[in-house]
């Protein structure tokens, strides 16, 4: 045993004449480091162990007396523009906050900090075709993003009526999947809610030309005028705007029977008479929804959503709402999940869920009341809590306008809920020119 073996044996508590295997030495070495020099100060060059108290003191000096970022400081902007956020697992981040761009706003929303920088009632301004559009912040974290990767949202609603436009156009009364040959036809009016004298009457007309597959017949009388003596027009399809033929309807039962017409759907060919006279109040099939969510040019975005659907005039002359909007604004918008009531006449009642990018608010989101008991179209936006009728008035220029909600008048197939020029809740025909007030969400 040499000198170093003796020293080792002493350090390990054994006798100087003992011998050990390597495993025994390793076991005995656990926690015992006193056999080598121990430094009393930190060093950048020494390979020796250092005293515990020296390390403790050094670490203590690192903590110092300055405050750490905590959950309580999350979202508070420091003078240098840097704020802190805390993840669910407690990880604290310092982040740069930008309140000067749409991308910055989206970043704030996504971090769940919107309510620290914005208030309901604040306005954000973007441009469309060089003109300002003022958006009211109507809710923070009230809408649910459709993309489950995100949980936060900030809902914007145009401060003013953007455009006076129909919710939907009057639809065709008949649509023929296989076309219709030229000849004389008749149908029976089983229901006509606004002209009692027409109920029970049989109407006939004669077409000189065949109607192709997908063609339609459109009645041209006003909703509150008799069909007797009014005209009916043939179109080659839903996208055709020029009538192929227009003939007069008369009382009579000559020719082939097309069946009866009523407020409800009576067959695969015949539409609801309410929709033929008023348009459809179904938001998901509406022209307004197509207009608000399109960035295409005039005439390039409307497509029929049902076999009876017809285009309102403005879709041929007005570009989609998203066209000409600031691209950076559009890029921070995200779809949210919405529920919309369905009328009980043709659509079965209840509510239907959809993902919406640009939308009209619902009745409950503006008034807090349900159109159909048990159907939740969304909580009232904070902006409209405790609102008076005057607070709900929307203007186009200086003129107060009736503006559409996306909610149908549920007991009718063609009337749409809306806000009157006095701020009250009412309904109006889908084909009527009401104001569209776009709403959307930063997600």
């Amino acid at each position: 045993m040499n000198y170093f073996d003796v020293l080792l044996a002493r350090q390990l508590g054994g006798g100087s004449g003992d011998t050990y295997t390597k495993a025994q030495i390793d076991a005995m070495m656990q926690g015992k480091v006193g056999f080598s020099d121990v430094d009393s100060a930190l060093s950048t060059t020494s390979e020796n162990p250092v005293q515990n108290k020296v390390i403790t003191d050094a670490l203590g000096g690192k903590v110092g007396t300055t405050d750490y970022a905590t959950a309580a400081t999350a979202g508070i902007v420091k003078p240098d523009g840097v704020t802190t956020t805390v993840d669910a697992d407690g990880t604290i981040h310092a982040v740069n906050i930008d309140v000067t761009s749409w991308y910055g706003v989206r970043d704030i929303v996504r971090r769940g900090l919107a309510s620290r920088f914005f208030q309901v009632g604040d306005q954000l301004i973007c441009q469309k075709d060089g003109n300002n559009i003022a958006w009211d912040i109507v809710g923070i974290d009230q809408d649910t993003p459709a993309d489950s990767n995100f949980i936060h949202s900030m809902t914007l609603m145009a401060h003013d009526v953007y455009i006076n436009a129909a919710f939907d156009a009057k639809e065709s009364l008949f649509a023929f999947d296989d076309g219709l040959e030229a000849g004389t036809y008749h149908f029976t009016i089983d229901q006509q809610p606004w002209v009692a004298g027409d109920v029970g009457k049989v109407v006939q007309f004669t077409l000189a030309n065949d109607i192709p597959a997908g063609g339609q017949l459109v009645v041209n009388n006003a909703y509150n005028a008799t069909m007797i003596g009014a005209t009916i027009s043939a179109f080659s399809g839903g996208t055709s705007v020029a009538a192929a033929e227009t003939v007069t309807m008369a009382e009579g039962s000559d020719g082939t029977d097309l069946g009866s017409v009523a407020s409800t759907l009576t067959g695969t060919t015949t539409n609801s008479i309410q929709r033929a006279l008023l348009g459809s109040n179904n938001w998901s099939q509406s022209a307004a929804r197509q207009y608000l969510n399109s960035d295409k040019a005039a005439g390039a975005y409307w497509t029929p959503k049902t076999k009876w659907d017809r285009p309102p005039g403005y879709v041929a002359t007005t570009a989609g709402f998203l066209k000409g909007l600031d691209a950076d604004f559009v890029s921070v918008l995200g779809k949210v999940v919405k529920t919309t009531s369905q009328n009980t006449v043709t659509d079965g009642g209840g509510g239907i869920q959809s993902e919406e990018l640009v939308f009209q608010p619902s009745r409950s989101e503006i008034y807090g009341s349900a159109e159909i008991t048990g159907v939740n179209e969304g909580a009232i936006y904070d902006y409209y809590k405790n609102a008076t009728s005057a607070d709900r008035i929307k203007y186009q220029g200086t003129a107060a306008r009736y503006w559409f909600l996306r909610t149908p008048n549920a007991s009718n197939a063609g009337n749409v809920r809306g806000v009157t020029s006095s701020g009250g809740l009412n309904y109006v025909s889908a084909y009527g020119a009401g104001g569209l007030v776009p709403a959307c969400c930063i997600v």
Partner: protein
Amino acid sequence: MFEHIPIEEQARHAAAEAQKTATQAERNAANIDYIAMMSDIDIDPEEEDEVSINE
């Protein structure tokens, strides 16, 4: 374009916008006055003839 108008600032912002509109209206009115003034200046027909390129 992005602009944020806090709710507390909207009244002031609206007033500033109204002031801008009023200022523009004043400018327009001034321009109209100027045009009206210029239109009141008579041009001597003979003098006009003297500079006619048809001669």
